[in-house]
């Protein structure tokens, strides 16, 4: 299960060993996150400093626990984790820390105190999208909330953030709240089912599966409202007008390159170049105005693809190329520079 | 006499859906007697017994049992996946430390129980599923005997037993009688009833006919069937010379000519069923059907082989009919593609064909669309026969087809079978009622332990000869 082939001890002279333990590969985001990780590992400086490996667990805590235990057995120096359960891995992560292994978790992070985390502020995610919708509607209108997978931390935080903003604006009326399971197909089906019995909808707030929600509006021959949503390429195609109709909205993503930043943090901490502190990064965010074809939206990539695989702009945390995200191949002749904020 | 009865049932009614198994039936037996319950198949014996031991709740009537009661049912109630020992000791297994079941002692204890009851040729560690029917029956009997009952009820205990096992059972029944227990049993073998029973109760169509201490067989038969058997058998036409079926199954050579009815005699469980199933393609088998030599691997092959083979099983509910499906579906099942175009059933043709058979066999059904399960036993059996009449099979394997069929329908059957033979069909017939074989067959092969023990030219006429042949060098009861 190791993309860069080797995880045998003799090979890695002087190289530090860092493994990515990903809870499951069940959606496009995870695939991209892994690809950029692999790409980064194949690019300097990591190419000659780090010896990477990648593992997936079937979204099942037991499996991921086994893998992390095995990584401990392998004597890796650092473990980068996207967890199957924010709480489920505390036990084994503690064991890793006890053995002096640097553990960095991101996206779906691990609670264990001893571990470092790299993440975006999920509550803020909810707030920003909600605030955008509110501003566009001038504080007046009917809003629909499409939530994610219940029983997960991220879903809770995002919803909490959004609720705070919407409640603060008396003019905004949340006319429906239902779960899209962070899956475009499901989001589309649920939205389609709900729309007919809904009044005029002026804005939608989507925790995931945004393109599905928009498709549902189009099918129902309803005007697509102001949309605050995730960073699905499909959604951004609408923002950019690549897909019709052009949609007015804001797209914030949980960036896949969190894995790369975690890699960098792990490396830096092991090398002693960075204090043992967690990192929170700003979201790469685009609106219908700022979205750029070829940079933050990709017509020739799947809708389910997450278009925020790279940060953009002058003070970008990290800049990656398309093939890194799609094939996990290194960006030609480029040394990777990661800002740990 | 009812002052001191061990079991007493009065005015019991019980019906299963349409079938009235018992109507105002009464029965009583005393301590210290062996009491036979006689009656045709379907007379209601088993139902009465189930009522007596409370397994079946009567719709109406009273039941009283005094003393510890143990019953061996007709359908074996052994558990196939458990060992003999586990079956014997299911209810009070040997206890070891902390009152836990001492599994290691199961086998020895069971072994002792078996030998206490005079059984030595049976491995208590064997898985019941793998035992012969006779041995399973023995285990079942030992299980009830071991409970030291005051009232012992046995439903057709000997049906599957070999002669020396029958003797063994008889001894135990007598011992219990001496000990003052009440022993009730049912049987279709008059010899046993005569030899064992102090009193006989006769049932017919679910009602009590009589209870007597003296009763000759012919009287009994008259009472059971409501008429004398002899008269009910039709005359047989002479068979033709052309051979219809020829096969060697294990150690048995079978040759049946057109128009010939060959009876397979012998006690139950002597390999007759295996013989029939092999001829019908369960397992690989070489057969010559209507001069065509073929290997049949599955029933489909047998049905298609040469002039066609048909098998009517005794257990129609498990192996013959699709109870919830309509009479029509059941009749048509084996010959669907004959009345179909491009896989579509030609309903009109089917209805016509089915109606033809229904009329010919006088199947009594409200409509051919009714589930066959709602028909009476006799009519269910007719439907099963009808299926093969539709298939036009020329070789008929009839395995105990008159089980649970009332006397009148039985008679229709005899006529039908004789008629089919007269039209040149070849019939291989097994029946648990030796009388049928004695009167209905041109030739009788008597089987014992999977081999042909004797061949009698028929119609044999008197069943005693067959029985005698069936148990040569076995001592009589």
């Amino acid at each position, binding site marked *: 299960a190791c993309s860069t082939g080797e995880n045998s001890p003799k090979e890695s002279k002087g190289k530090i060993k860092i493994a990515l333990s990903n809870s499951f*590969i069940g*959606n*496009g985001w995870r*695939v*991209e996150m*892994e690809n950029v990780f692999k790409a980064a590992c194949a690019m300097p400086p990591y190419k000659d400093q780090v010896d990477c490996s990648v593992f997936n667990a079937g979204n099942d805590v037991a499996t991921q626990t086994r893998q992390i235990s095995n990584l401990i057995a392998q004597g890796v120096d650092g473990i980068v984790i996207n967890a199957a359960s924010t709480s489920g891995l505390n036990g084994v992560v503690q064991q890793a820390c006890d053995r002096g292994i640097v553990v960095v978790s991101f996206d779906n992070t691990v609670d264990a105190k001893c571990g470092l985390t790299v993440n975006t502020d999920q509550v803020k995610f909810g707030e920003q999208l909600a605030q955008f919708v509110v501003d566009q509607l001038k504080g007046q209108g009917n809003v629909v909330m499409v939530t994610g997978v*219940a*029983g997960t931390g991220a879903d809770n935080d995002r919803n909490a953030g959004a609720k705070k903003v919407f409640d603060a604006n008396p003019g905004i009326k949340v006319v*429906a*709240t*239902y*779960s899209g399971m962070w*899956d*475009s*197909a*499901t989001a589309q089906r*649920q939205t*389609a*089912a*709900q*729309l*007919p*019995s809904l009044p005029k909808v002026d804005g939608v707030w989507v925790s995931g599966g945004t393109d599905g929600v928009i*498709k549902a509006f189009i099918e129902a021959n309803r005007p697509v409202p102001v949309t605050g949503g995730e960073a699905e390429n*499909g959604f951004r195609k609408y923002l950019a007008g690549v897909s019709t109709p052009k949609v007015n909205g804001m797209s914030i993503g949980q960036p896949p390159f969190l894995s790369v930043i975690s890699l960098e943090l792990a490396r830096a901490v092991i090398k002693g170049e960075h204090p043992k502190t967690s990192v929170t990064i700003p979201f790469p965010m685009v609106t219908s105005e700022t979205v750029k074809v070829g940079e933050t939206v990709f017509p*020739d*990539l*799947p809708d*389910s*693809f997450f278009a925020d695989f790279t940060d953009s702009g002058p003070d970008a945390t990290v800049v990656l190329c398309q093939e890194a*995200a799609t*094939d996990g191949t290194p960006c030609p002749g480029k040394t990777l520079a990661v800002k740990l904020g | 006499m009812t002052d001191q009865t061990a079991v007493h049932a009065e005015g019991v009614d019980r019906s*299963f*859906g349409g*079938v009235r198994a018992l109507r105002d039936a009464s029965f009583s037996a005393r301590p210290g007697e062996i009491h036979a319950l006689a009656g045709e198949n379907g007379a209601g014996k088993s139902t009465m017994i189930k009522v007596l031991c409370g397994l079946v709740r009567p719709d109406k009537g009273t039941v009283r049992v005094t003393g510890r009661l143990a019953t061996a049912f007709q359908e074996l109630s052994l558990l196939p996946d458990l060992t003999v020992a586990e079956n014997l000791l299911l209810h009070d297994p040997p206890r070891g430390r902390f009152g836990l079941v001492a599994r290691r002692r199961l086998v020895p204890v069971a072994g002792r129980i078996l030998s206490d009851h005079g059984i030595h040729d049976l491995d208590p560690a064997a898985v019941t599923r793998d035992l012969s029917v006779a041995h399973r029956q023995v285990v079942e009997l030992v299980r009830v005997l071991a409970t030291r009952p005051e009232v012992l009820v046995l439903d057709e205990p000997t049906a599957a037993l070999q002669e020396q096992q029958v003797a063994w059972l008889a001894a135990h029944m007598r011992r219990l009688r001496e000990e003052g227990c009440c022993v009730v049993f049912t049987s279709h073998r008059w010899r046993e009833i005569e030899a064992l029973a102090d009193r006989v109760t006769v049932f017919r169509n679910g009602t009590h006919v009589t209870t007597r201490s003296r009763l000759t067989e012919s009287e009994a038969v008259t009472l059971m069937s409501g008429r004398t058997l002899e008269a009910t058998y039709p005359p047989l036409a002479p068979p033709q010379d052309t051979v219809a079926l020829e096969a060697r199954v294990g150690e048995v050579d079978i040759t049946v000519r057109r128009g010939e009815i060959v009876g397979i005699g012998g006690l139950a469980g002597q390999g007759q069923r295996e013989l029939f199933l092999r001829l*019908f393609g369960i397992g690989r088998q070489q057969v010559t059907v209507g001069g065509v030599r073929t290997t049949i691997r*599955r*029933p489909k092959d047998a049905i298609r082989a040469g002039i066609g083979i048909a098998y009517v*099983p005794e257990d129609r509910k498990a*192996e*013959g009919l*699709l*109870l*919830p*499906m309509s009479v029509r*579906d059941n009749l*048509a*099942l*084996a010959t*669907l*593609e004959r009345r*179909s175009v491009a*896989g*579509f*059933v030609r309903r009109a043709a089917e209805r016509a064909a089915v109606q033809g058979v229904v009329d010919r066999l006088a199947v009594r059904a409200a409509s051919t669309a*009714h*589930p066959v*399960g*709602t028909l009476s036993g006799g009519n269910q059996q007719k439907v099963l026969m009808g*299926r093969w009449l539709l298939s036009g099979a020329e070789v008929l394997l009839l395995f105990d087809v008159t089980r649970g069929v009332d006397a009148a329908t039985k008679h229709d059957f005899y006529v039908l079978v004789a008629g089919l033979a007269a039209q040149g069909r070849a019939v291989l017939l097994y029946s648990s009622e030796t009388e049928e074989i004695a009167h209905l067959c041109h030739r009788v092969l008597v089987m014992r332990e999977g081999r042909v023990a004797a061949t009698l030219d028929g119609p044999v006429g008197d069943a005693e000869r067959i029985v005698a042949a069936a148990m040569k060098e076995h001592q009589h009861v």
Partner: protein
Amino acid sequence: MNLEAVLRKAAPQRRIWYAFAAAATILVAGAVIHPGFGSWPSLRTMLVLASFIGFVGAGQMLVVLVGGIDLSMPWVLNGAAIVLTTSSLGQSGRLPLAVLLALGTGAAVGLCNGLGVAWLGVPAVVMTLGMNGVLQGLSLGLSKGLTCASCASYAPEPLRRLVVGRVWGVPSQLLLWAGVALLVTVLLTFTTFGRRVYAVGNNPRAAFLAGVGVRPVTVALYVLSGVFAALAGVTLVAYGGQPSLGLGDPYLFESIAAVVVGGVSILGGRGHYAGVVAGSVTLVAIVTLLQAERVPEYGRNVIYGLVILAILFTYGRERADD
């Protein structure tokens, strides 16, 4: 088994009516509770969503009729969806080929399932569960987790029109569903094959002794099950435009639920597709209503389960010794 049971079994038609009654009850209740729920647009969309369950339900029912079960649906569905887009590359010209490939994939998996169950005697639960894993592995691996170049392509336009388009105001997807319903019903009620299916389902032993090829029939049913799962995948990808990983996940339990809510006996031998149609609608209606009423996730699960239990109690009971 005794005659009461026989009689109870004898009236599958009655169970169909129960199933429709259940669906009607939910719909009416919804229309009363939630304004707009009963409107034609709302019903129309619910029917379209039900049709997807209807397709997997058709496959599931066929195997359940012979006492089997197909747990490989989720990834057969998903795999077929991926095959469709990747092989069609969004070009109408390649559509026929692509559809054939997708359905063929389903058929192939069904064949494996059938052979494993009927000939190797592997319990259906295990065989289909295993195949589900196999297919998941292949789908993920071969499509590089859906990041492959061709994975970007959409379902060809004609197909999408077929699913989301309208004919005289009726979504053509519904016409497709009607077609499937007709097909399955005809297959089961008017053909010799159908007769054999019910025979095997009611009593394989007796069917076998009446010359029915128990095993061929079983295999054929699993193949059909695979094809219908694939069909669901094809239409779903047309509906959403592109496949996503986990597209099929919701459809395992829903297919089983639809079958039993539709009055099909899980022990086999009894049931008609009409019931499954009603069952699919019932399920969609329940979920839609609960979502519309903003019942929190936990409440949705609890109520969903209880409703199904209630339905089972009214007409899903088996004889204890069946």
